[in-house]
């Protein structure tokens, strides 16, 4: 039962469906803890961030100066010259020169911060990605049982992507907008406090309206994500079953159903995007309206000669002041509407970041083991550790009193009253006791879910026991370092996972130091050499998409060869030959027997022909061992095994 999720390829193929629906939770409030944690990722870039901030400041000042300059230009350099017969432009030229320098600095600062921000954003993302992946490698297998592939994949795709957009684009824009707003605000105050007040009041109403529209678009985005998730999962399911559709002539029906879902998406997507699109022209128009109000009020003040109040005292309103103020007010509203435009993407990104951090906070696989596996040499019955590979392995066991003992690795596995449950309260294994002597072949027979696969999952400590003990060569496996424990176990699973790379690289997966010769021999042993030779580039053929060009049986053969290359003293074969036809299996059997000889082997199989020659056969039912013995003994007993063997009983 624990295999259900792992074996579900449908979820892995398309990750957009589950993730997009989860994105919709992004229309919440600001998440400060997440933001803080995200910022902590930028810590290494502290120096750059300071320079960036300074540059943004310079750039914002330059743009503020440019809008302020218009007033000076008109009032100080143009108006005084009006009516003059021989106007002197040297003053103007000087002012323009100063401005040119300011502009130059501003542009340079702009270039600098944009380029530095790229390094910061991409560097931060790289760190987050790498952390995520390293973290994933340390997570216990149970985590992968609880989460679909799609969920995990979407952390790397959708969530990281929204984060990239936020860091790379929104962040610098927000910083620069904030500076511009502050700078422009003071400039406006400098010209006229009254008009500034008008701008603030107008701004208040504008933002109110914007918030209303944003709220509306938020809820329609939720609807869009829902219909999209629905559509995506339908597409995925149907395209995966396309051949069945053809066989049953179900084409018209599925087209119709698709049309309904597609239409629902179209409607909601149209509404959601419409709201989002409308934001910008709306803010623009509201800005114009505000502009008119200021123009009218300003003109009224100038014409009526109302005393103006600037930040540095009172003066009278001039034409140039109004012109400048109007430009300023535009420069004030633009960054505000930019921030409100960014707001949605920031919240979405933070929601994604929150998911990423939650993933990183998952409890990792614990490993308190201290017994390690070392190369050893045996002389006169005394085992000593050696650095070079001798073919002999030993458990190096440091004790509390500071002494060290070495135990020869033999492959004796003992289960001592083991209880286990995947989910607390739902016991999967009851009081399992079994003993496997070095070199023995132990078979586990039982229906799917009877607990046979679970037993092997416990030996390599994918899960920890509820009660009881498992001993490996007399050592409690909890004391053995997981990496060393697993190094001593070769596992071949029914569901074969191959990695993108050449056949040779895949064979070498369990033992990087294996020579080509060793890999070839292992392939011959598994009867895989023949078909590998027929591949376009033989052992150098690149396998893609989990070896999709190969048949299931061929994949299993490669998987067996892979385990053979890693050359472990204990082997676990979980339905390892289930997809190989019986005739090929008979051919592989010789190699398998050679592979198993001298190794303790656990075999799980539905096909009883595979397990007949085992030293002990255990029949499992609902988490307990109900029968045990060798083939002859169990047949003689005429119990469950006998029934299974004669086909009177069903295994599923």
């Amino acid at each position, binding site marked *: 039962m624990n295999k259900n999720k*792992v074996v579900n390829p449908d979820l892995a193929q398309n990750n957009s469906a589950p993730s997009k629906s989860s994105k919709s939770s992004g229309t919440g409030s600001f998440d400060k803890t997440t933001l803080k944690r995200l910022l902590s990722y930028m810590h290494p870039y502290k120096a750059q961030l300071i320079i960036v901030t300074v540059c943004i400041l310079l750039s914002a000042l*330059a743009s503020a100066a440019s809008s302020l300059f218009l007033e000076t230009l008109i009032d100080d350099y143009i108006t005084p*010259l*009006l009516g003059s017969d021989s106007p002197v432009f040297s003053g103007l030229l000087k002012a323009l020169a100063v401005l040119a320098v300011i*502009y130059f600095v*501003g*542009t*340079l600062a702009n270039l600098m911060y944009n380029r530095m921000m790229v390094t910061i*954003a*991409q*560097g931060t993302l790289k760190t987050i990605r790498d952390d995520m*992946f*390293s973290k994933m490698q340390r*997570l216990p297998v149970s985590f992968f049982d609880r989460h679909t592939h799609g969920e*995990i*994949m979407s952390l*790397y795709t959708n969530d990281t992507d929204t984060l990239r957009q936020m860091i790379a684009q929104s962040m610098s824009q927000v910083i620069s907008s904030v500076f511009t707003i502050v700078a422009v605000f003071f400039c406006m105050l400098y010209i006229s406090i009254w008009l500034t007040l008008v701008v603030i009041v107008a701004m208040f109403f504008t933002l109110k309206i914007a918030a209303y529209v944003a709220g509306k678009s938020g809820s329609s985005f939720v609807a869009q994500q829902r219909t999209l998730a629905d559509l995506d999962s339908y*597409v*995925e*399911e149907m395209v*995966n079953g*396309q051949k*069945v559709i*053809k*066989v*049953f002539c179900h084409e018209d029906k599925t*087209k119709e159903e698709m049309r309904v879902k597609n239409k629902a*998406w179209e409607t909601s997507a*149209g509404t959601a*995007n*419409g*709201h*989002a*699109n*409308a934001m910008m*022209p709306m803010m623009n128009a*509201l800005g*114009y*309206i505000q502009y*008119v109000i200021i*123009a009218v009020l300003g003109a009224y003040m100038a014409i009526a000669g109302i005393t103006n109040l600037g930040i540095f005292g009172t003066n009278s309103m001039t034409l140039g002041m109004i012109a400048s103020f109007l430009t300023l007010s535009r420069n004030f509203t633009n960054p505000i509407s930019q921030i409100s435009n960014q707001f949605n993407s920031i919240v979405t990104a933070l929601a994604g970041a929150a998911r990423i951090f939650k993933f990183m906070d998952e409890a990792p696989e614990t490993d308190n083991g201290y017994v390690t596996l070392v190369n050893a040499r045996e002389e006169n019955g005394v085992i000593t550790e050696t650095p070079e590979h001798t073919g002999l392995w030993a458990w190096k066991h440091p004790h509390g009193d500071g002494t060290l003992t070495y135990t020869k690795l033999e492959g004796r596995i003992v289960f001592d009253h083991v209880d286990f449950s995947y989910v607390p309260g739902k016991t999967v294994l009851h009081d399992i006791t079994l003993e496997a002597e070095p070199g023995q072949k132990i078979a586990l027979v039982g229906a799917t879910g009877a607990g046979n696969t679970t037993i092997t999952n416990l030996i390599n400590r994918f899960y920890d026991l509820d009660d009881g003990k498992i001993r490996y060569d007399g050592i409690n496996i909890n004391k053995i370092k997981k990496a060393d424990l*697993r*190094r001593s176990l070769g*596992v071949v*699973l029914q569901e074969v*996972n191959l990695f*993108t790379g050449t056949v040779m690289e895949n064979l070498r*997966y369990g033992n990087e130091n294996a020579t080509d010769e060793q890999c070839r021999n292992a392939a011959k042993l598994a009867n895989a050499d023949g078909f590998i030779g027929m591949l376009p580039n033989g052992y150098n053929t690149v396998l893609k*998409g989990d070896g999709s060009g190969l048949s299931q049986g061929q994949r299993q053969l490669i998987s067996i060869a892979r385990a053979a290359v890693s050359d472990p003293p204990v082997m676990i074969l979980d339905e390892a030959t289930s*997809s*190989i*036809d019986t*005739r090929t299996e008979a051919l592989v059997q010789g190699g398998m027997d050679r592979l198993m000889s001298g190794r303790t082997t656990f075999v799980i199989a539905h096909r009883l022909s595979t397990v007949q020659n085992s030293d002990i056969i255990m029949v499992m039912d609902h988490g307990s061992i109900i029968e045990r013995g060798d083939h*002859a003994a169990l*047949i003689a007993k005429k119990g469950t095994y006998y029934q299974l*063997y*004669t*086909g009177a009983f*069903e295994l*599923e």
Partner: protein
Amino acid sequence: MIRTLFKSLCEHKKGSITTVILSIIEVVFEIIIPLCMSDLIDFGINEGSMSEVWKYGIVLLIFAVLELITGVLSAHVAARCSAGFAANLRQDMYDNVQTFAFSNIDRFSTSSIVTRLTTDVTNIQNAWQMLIRMAVRGPVMMIFSIIVSFSISKDISLIFLIAIPVLAVGLFLVVRGVNPIFKRVFKTYDELNNVVQENVKGIRVVKTFNQQDHEITKFNGISKRIFTDFAKGERLIAFNSPLMQACMYACMLLISWLGAKAIVASGNNAALGLTTGELTALITYAMQILTSLMMLSMVFAMITISASSMSRVAELLDETTDIRNPEDPVMEVKNGNICFDHVDFTYASTSDKKVLDDIHLTIRSGETVGIIGGTGSSKSSLVQLIPRLYDVTEGALSVGGVDVRKYDLEALRGAVAMVLQKNELFSGTIKENLCWGNENATDDEIKEACRLACADEFINTLPDGYDTHIDQGGTNVSGGQKQRLCIARALLRKPKILILDDSTSAVDTKTDAVIQKSFAEFIPDTTKIIIAQRISSIAHAGIIVVMDGGRIQAVGTHDELLKSSDIYREVFESQQKGSADNE
């Protein structure tokens, strides 16, 4: 490619054109408004006339409101028609996929079809929305702004003739430089996702072989490449904003200088020349012209990014099915006779590797045929030719005495029910799944089919019986249960020919035998073709075909084959070894 995509625009052509027109109107307002503003300053404030200020103020307000209306309207229309366009594209692709033959499906692979129907469509939707709103708006805004600027001051506007090409060339160079880099980045992204996916799926393998560090190193290598490339590309893009700023500042300085001189010369009199109000307007237009260029470069970048999505979608739309209905098709399959007449078959026309080689076989209506053979012996390929899921390459295949290529596809497939090796159940109730076989099946018929397939017993133990919900991919029923449901589904077709492609492998031998027996008893007139790995599943068959490497190695009954076929005997012995000793 573009033409293929445009065919799907259909009823949204109107909306797209409306958007374009609305955005042009929007631009007109954006141009007129600064003009009004300069008039307001010149005639209102300068003249000290409050009535003029009011006049222009109200005109301005009206324009602003009109701009609001057109802007919001165009936003919604654009969103609707681009969503509609995307929906049409998706539907057209999906409809086309439904016409595909198996060979077409094989060529594209499932995951690539799914990506085209989901991610690629979304990319096109976004690109289209941007295109109809911006692509026209940008140039129009630029042309309008230039015209108005020239009408204000010909001399000063000459500045633009220098600034625009400079900026345009700069932006073009950036986009051109960035393109190949981003293409590479997207490829690397695929690689990254692939590594993650392989690791998520194969986490047990990674842990078993202690390859965590190896995988982390692999991943870090790829993420480093993404970092390097992405940073390189974005650093280039970072030139955009300062470039634009530099041009704008340069324009402003020049306009200020030239403008000041012109105003002084004219005495700030509109009749004689440039005024201060017009100077303000000129600067606004300068900004607009440069912004519109920026917009164009964004559109350009967006199009290049979505170009690969477009070509992928077009590819799927342009694909024509390898198997189509003949003209004047035969609508009825008379009986279950099957005749393979020296049939050769290859999967791809380019490949010369024969999957089936000179198959000559006659099956009489109502007969039970067993097919056995090793992995890769082309058993499945052989039976997939019968309902014309693939076409023969050489030779001929007839069903009911008529060449399969002469039948109406639906009629043929209605008469030939096939349970595929990799079979799928769909999310929905058991009943809904069974009704795939026959939409109009009555409850009694459904129960009958389930009884024949030995599925009724376990269905009856389920809490909701026939209304039990099946999860996507049928993950909540066991392998054997799934197979029996698939058989029942096929039986509901009441076929003339029933093909089971290794469909009882997860069913125990006893139940298997019961199913076989009920086939013989209750559907005696149906031709039954059974592919199996277990000899016991086919031993009773009237004829047994032994396949080896795409050829028929032997044909005969169980007893005959034990004598005549080495392969058959070997298989038999490998399965019988233990039991013969003990029984």
